[in-house]
């Protein structure tokens, strides 16, 4: 099959061995690539006995069958590991250039095992794979590492960790191309534990395409749709993702001051409109992307990429801060230190509430824009209170006696939508396999934007079927791997046709969505094997028991329980949220799951 290179690179840092082996093409058919392939490989590689920050945990960087083909937004790749923040299966994906370059180097995936004795970096070029001394890079920030190792105008691309990863912050990101991030769940800490500072790639071979004529036609069709969609041709390029700030605030779903309110009086000041008017320098794009949603912004102190909507919320409304310059600088600092901005901002907001309730002795108080940068620095280097912040809001709030003040699911901090004002978003958060995540299904489109269809955001009954369908679609997109913004203009039907043209194997839309369902169920089985149960599919008690006091979502809590029961039934799971044997068989997972369970149990 075309689309895949057919090769997996496997590096064990403990003994500096480098191996290459063939990708099982049946595995490729079932799990595609990216997130799906990562989940399948992690199932075999990392069982329950392995701690996330043990050298035995692995990092799996994976591209997909569409990566580097030149299809619109075919630049993305993912990393899969066991999360040091949540203990769940984790995948995070990123755009930019590195993923495309890695695929062109001739690999579908890279598995990194073990731990080097001293800091190293890996270089992958057409001349081979080498492991190099990184002593001179250890301690350096992301921009400096990227510059020293040589991005070379995207003919060579750098992926690295910053000080946060070295210091094992559980919310450390892996950064690529200097400014993009594989952020959520702390994969940077796993890389730091391995003493792996960076991975540099140079590639030269574009992947093969089976049906060139068909592929070119689909490129043309997709380009037309991206150009005519007002979302991808106007709103995102003009205002970036923060364009939704005012909308979410208006409907009363903008989490404010650690989810104590759902409307922020400073929303306009931190909106996409304000960012464009006052701080935007220019737009930027990932490889093969005609949308260009990336902001390059500048304040008196910094110039750099971002901030995205979620970041602007995390350091803005979540912390009660309406100083957009301070938010841009906080975002820049996180990129330099290698930190997930959602978890970082949310954890600081949690510390602010702990402080204001007298449970924590600190200077962190809502509205203190001047405290953002010092808190982020302390977190990245684990200095003073930063040592607690670096472990995430759940461990922080638990230590100071109020775990209910952590706005997280399975330990992963929630993004910028209050589930009391978007019922389906709550179900999405509660059931997401990596913890609270807004990218595991597009409920924003359905519940707020009316895309691809309009459903009532307060509706409870019948909501699960939408959540499930969009979770499955998201898992498929993450396995191809393309950008979800493309999906807003070009439906999954086109992705199936593109995959068919590239691979030469007929994938129907149903086949593609079924692959996503397969990935979702394997991730679920992974978490169950780790000991997660139905009780982990929940939301913070504030969202379940404290009705919003005012605004358009006044009086609402999230009605999770009836949605969850309906969700399990519709998924084909039992009442405890365990996929039935029939469901596993239907998804061709039965053999994988049962054989590996017995292997793990016998260890």
């Amino acid at each position, binding site marked *: 099959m075309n689309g895949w290179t057919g090769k997996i690179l496997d590096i064990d840092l403990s003994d500096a061995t480098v191996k290459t082996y063939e990708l099982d093409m049946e595995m490729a058919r079932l799990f595609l690539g990216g997130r799906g392939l990562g989940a399948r490989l992690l199932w075999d590689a990392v069982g329950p006995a392995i701690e996330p920050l043990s050298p035995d945990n692995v990092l799996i960087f994976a591209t997909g069958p569409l990566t580097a083909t030149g299809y619109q937004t075919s630049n*993305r790749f993912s990393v899969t590991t066991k999360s040091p923040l949540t203990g769940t299966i984790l995948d995070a*994906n990123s*755009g930019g250039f590195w993923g495309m370059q890695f695929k062109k180097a001739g690999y579908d995936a890279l598995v990194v095992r073990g731990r080097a004795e001293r800091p190293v970096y890996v270089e992958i070029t057409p001349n081979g794979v080498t492991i190099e001394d990184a002593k001179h890079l250890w301690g350096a920030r992301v921009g400096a590492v990227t510059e020293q190792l040589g991005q070379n105008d995207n003919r060579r691309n750098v992926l690295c960790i910053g000080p946060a990863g070295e210091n094992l912050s559980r919310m450390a990101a892996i950064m690529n191309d200097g400014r993009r991030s594989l952020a959520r769940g702390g994969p940077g800490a796993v890389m730091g534990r391995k003493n792996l500072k960076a991975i540099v790639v140079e590639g030269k071979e574009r992947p093969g395409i089976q049906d060139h004529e068909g592929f070119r036609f689909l490129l043309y069709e997709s380009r037309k749709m991206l150009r005519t*969609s*007002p*979302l*991808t041709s*106007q*709103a*995102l390029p*003009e*205002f970036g*993702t*923060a*364009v*939704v700030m*005012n*909308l*979410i605030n*208006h*409907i*009363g779903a903008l989490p404010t001051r650690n989810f104590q309110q759902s409307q922020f009086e400073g929303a306009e000041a931190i909106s*996409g*409109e304000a960012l464009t008017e006052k701080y935007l320098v220019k737009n930027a794009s990932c490889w093969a992307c005609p949308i260009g949603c990336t902001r390059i912004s500048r304040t008196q102190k910094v110039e750099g990429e971002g901030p*995205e*909507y*979620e*970041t602007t919320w995390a350091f803005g409304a979540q912390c009660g801060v309406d100083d957009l310059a301070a938010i841009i600088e906080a975002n820049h600092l996180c990129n330099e230190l290698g930190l997930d901005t959602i978890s970082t901002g949310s954890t600081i907001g949690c510390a602010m509430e702990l402080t204001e309730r007298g449970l924590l002795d600190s200077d962190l108080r809502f509205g203190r824009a001047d405290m953002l940068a010092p808190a982020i620095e302390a977190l990245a280097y684990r200095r003073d209170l930063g040592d607690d912040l670096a472990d995430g809001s759940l461990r922080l709030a638990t230590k100071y006696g109020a775990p209910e003040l952590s706005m997280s699911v399975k330990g992963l901090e929630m*993004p910028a939508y209050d589930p009391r004002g978007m019922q389906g978003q709550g179900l999405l958060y509660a059931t997401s396999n990596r913890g609270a995540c*807004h*990218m595991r299904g*597009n409920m*924003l*489109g359905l519940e*707020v*934007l*009316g*895309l691809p269809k*309009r459903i*009532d955001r307060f509706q409870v009954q019948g909501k699960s079927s939408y959540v499930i369908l969009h979770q499955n679609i998201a898992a498929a997109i993450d396995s191809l791997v393309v*950008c*979800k*913004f493309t999906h*807003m203009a070009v439906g999954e039907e086109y992705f199936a046709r593109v995959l068919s043209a590239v691979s030469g194997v007929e994938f129907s839309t149903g086949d593609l969505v079924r692959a996503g369902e397969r990935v979702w169920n394997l991730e679920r089985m992974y978490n169950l094997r780790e000991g997660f149960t139905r009780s982990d599919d929940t939301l913070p008690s504030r969202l379940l028991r404290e009705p919003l006091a005012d*605004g*358009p*979502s006044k009086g609402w809590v999230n009605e999770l329980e009836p949605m969850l029961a309906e969700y399990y039934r519709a998924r084909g799971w039992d009442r405890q949220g365990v996929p039935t044997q029939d469901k596993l068989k239907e998804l061709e997972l039965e053999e994988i799951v049962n054989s590996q369970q017995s292997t793990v149990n016998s260890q």
Partner: protein
Amino acid sequence: MARVTLYGGLRRHVSAPMQQLDSVTMRDAELQAALFENDRPRPHVRVLVNGRNLEWMRGLDTPLEQDHQVAIFPPIAGGTP
């Protein structure tokens, strides 16, 4: 009189983002064209009255009261991959 606030690219049609509902500006031809198609709101243009989507109320027949806040958004999307 209800207040109308325009967002995103719609602001290029007005001198200030917040306008009185019946002002001349609201009848501006370019703005009308941006909002309506064949006398119906353009697909994906979002009109909120006090945070509730007009489509869940009585559409363009929704009665407005003096203290109502009307927010009009062009087609937008959000989130970060």
